């Protein structure tokens, strides 16, 4: 009986006869869209050629919840109700949930998470590309415990390597591409203990890797960690280095092109020759505040165009580094505008590359303590108030939902952080203020939070990984974060 059922099912699908013909709902767009999706999925074929290129997109702090908020924001900006919007990475065929815990952190930070993706193993919080047996700050014992990185493997295979971030280039996620350190905070020589000889500071390691030909293009912020305290840069800011080294000048002397603003960025020769872009003294600006420096999409385009000159291909790590920072600030508006800029960079990379030879992976390193309220009607502005559901229609009723305290509340909030309603100068008491939609949607507004903290925290919950291209189908189910390295490594070595 079972075999007969399976046979008739197969026949029905293969002849394209919809099972829907008996169903009253068969003409609903929901139904027909889903039927089309079924056909697309049944016809889908994995790409099993060798990957020539790998692009790893990471939006720091952009877990499933944060990504959801970016989706709604982008949809609402486009004039839609929000939920129905599809971000570019959400069209990718392959998806897995990623477990982001580290060897000692139920809640991770960006250092071991970047390490996991770049080396294939998990390690401790605060450390970058050093194995889990070594303690934080233990420079003395780190020799022999450094991990080999995907960038090093790619470079040995003749590929070019690029690293891009809107955070400082010496910050954890970009540093995970090229550095090995027992403390992620050793961004310049001032952090390094005097007796530490087994490693140099992170900025020095980047320049050394560029001179060694492992890293070809590096673009981001963090200029102050490359220049001395007595040197004033083009934006009138001094550096942090106290060892007398101006790493920018040293890089230029070694033949690396240097850019620090959008004017010289536009003049870069994008022929695959080495480029160092340091566009801010510290982190680059939030997308909402950006002026005078390239966007993530512009840096992505420049790097792809430069490195596609290498017939052996490339590995590029591209980070939207400040979705995380805006979450730490409790300022959802800047989270979302940076998240949208991340999606724009992905769309552009997809356009510039070929699915048949380029594996594109989109993920986050960890999530934040962000949460969402209900019961909101469609079109409730994601940074604004939760409006009531219209029992007779589609869009919300324009009536804000109220808590038991009689006050309106926003769709999104945080469990902790600077938006806490409990204030130190009121002996950690407080109550929710009256709130208008106009106040909540102000770009500088901090959504309400509960536990008072000077900075909102990460969370340990799963993030998503979305992928397309050769061997992207190896992403499925619920995976450990370090598995991401293994997919990249398998894809570039496949026969």
């Amino acid at each position: 009986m079972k075999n007969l059922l399976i046979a008739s099912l197969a026949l029905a699908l293969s002849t394209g006869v919809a099972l829907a013909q008996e169903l009253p709902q068969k003409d609903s767009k929901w139904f027909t869209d889903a039927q089309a999706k079924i056909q697309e999925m049944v016809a889908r074929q994995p790409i099993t050629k060798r990957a020539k290129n790998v692009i790893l997109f990471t939006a720091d702090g952009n877990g499933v919840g944060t990504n959801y908020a970016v989706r709604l924001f982008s949809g609402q900006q486009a004039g839609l109700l929000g939920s129905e919007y599809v971000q570019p990475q959400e069209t990718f065929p392959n998806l897995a949930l990623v477990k982001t815990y580290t060897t000692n952190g139920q809640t991770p930070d960006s250092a071991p998470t970047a390490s996991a993706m770049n080396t294939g193993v998990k390690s401790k919080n605060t450390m970058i590309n050093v194995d889990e047996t070594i303690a934080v700050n233990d420079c003395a014992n780190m020799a022999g415990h450094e991990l080999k990185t995907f960038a090093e493997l790619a470079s040995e295979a003749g590929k070019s390597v690029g690293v891009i971030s809107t955070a400082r280039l010496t910050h954890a996620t970009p540093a995970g591409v090229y550095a090995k350190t027992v403390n992620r905070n050793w961004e310049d020589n001032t952090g390094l203990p005097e007796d530490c000889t087994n490693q140099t500071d992170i900025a020095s390691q980047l320049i050394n890797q560029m001179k060694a030909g492992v890293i070809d293009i590096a673009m981001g912020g963090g200029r102050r960690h490359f220049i001395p305290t007595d040197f004033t840069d083009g934006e009138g800011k001094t550096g942090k280095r106290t060892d007398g080294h101006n790493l920018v000048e040293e890089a230029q002397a070694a033949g690396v092109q240097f850019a620090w603003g959008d004017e010289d960025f536009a003049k870069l020769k994008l022929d695959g020759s080495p480029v160092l872009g340091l566009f801010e003294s510290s982190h680059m600006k939030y997308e909402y505040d950006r002026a005078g420096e390239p966007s993530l999409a512009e840096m992505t385009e420049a790097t792809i165009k430069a490195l596609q000159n290498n017939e052996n291909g490339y590995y590029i790590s591209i980070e939207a580094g400040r979705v995380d920072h805006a979450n730490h600030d409790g300022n959802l508006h800047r989270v979302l505008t940076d998240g949208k800029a991340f999606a724009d960079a992905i769309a552009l990379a997809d356009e510039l590359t070929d699915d048949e030879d380029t594996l594109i992976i989109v993920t986050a390193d960890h999530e934040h303590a962000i949460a969402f309220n209900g019961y909101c009607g469609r079109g409730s502005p994601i940074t604004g108030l939760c409006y009531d559901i219209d029992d007779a229609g589609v869009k919300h009723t324009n009536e804000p939902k109220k808590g038991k305290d009689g006050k309106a509340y926003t769709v999104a909030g945080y469990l902790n952080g600077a938006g806490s309603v409990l204030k130190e100068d009121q002996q950690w008491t407080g109550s929710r203020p009256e709130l208008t939609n106009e106040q909540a949607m102000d770009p500088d507004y901090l959504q309400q939070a509960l536990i008072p903290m000077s900075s909102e925290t990460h969370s340990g919950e799963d993030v998503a990984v979305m992928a397309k291209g050769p061997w992207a189908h190896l992403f499925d189910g619920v995976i450990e974060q370090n598995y991401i390295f293994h997919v990249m490594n398998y894809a570039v070595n496949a026969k």
Partner: protein
Amino acid sequence: MNRRQFVLGALGCPAIATASVLAFADDTTKLRDLYNKDLSFSDYALEREGQRVSISGFMAPPLKAETKFFVLTNRPLAVCPFCETEAEWPDDILAIYSKRIIEVISFNTRIVSRGRLELGTYTDPETRFVSRVRLVDAVYERA
């Protein structure tokens, strides 16, 4: 009504008592309105140089106790332990030189500060703090 208003009112100066409240309400603007996107001073700032203005923002945790100086920020200054190893000032801040020793208000409680607007780079001789824009002879209260 704050204590000063009550005392002034009791002394028979109700006009002064109420005037200070009205003054804060009329022309208060947000700190961000002093800057353009490229961090040059806005027309609003340039037109009011040397005048008393009323600016709304947040008091960053003071650098030391018993001081007449604090920094006003546009958004509450969240100090992220992973992002910075030391407190980092945003580019768009306002240095406040208060008339009196300051009483600390939580970094995430909105305040309004009124003082004379000074534009231009200045290095505080005592703290070496460098500011591009300041309110001097300033007073402040919760918004």
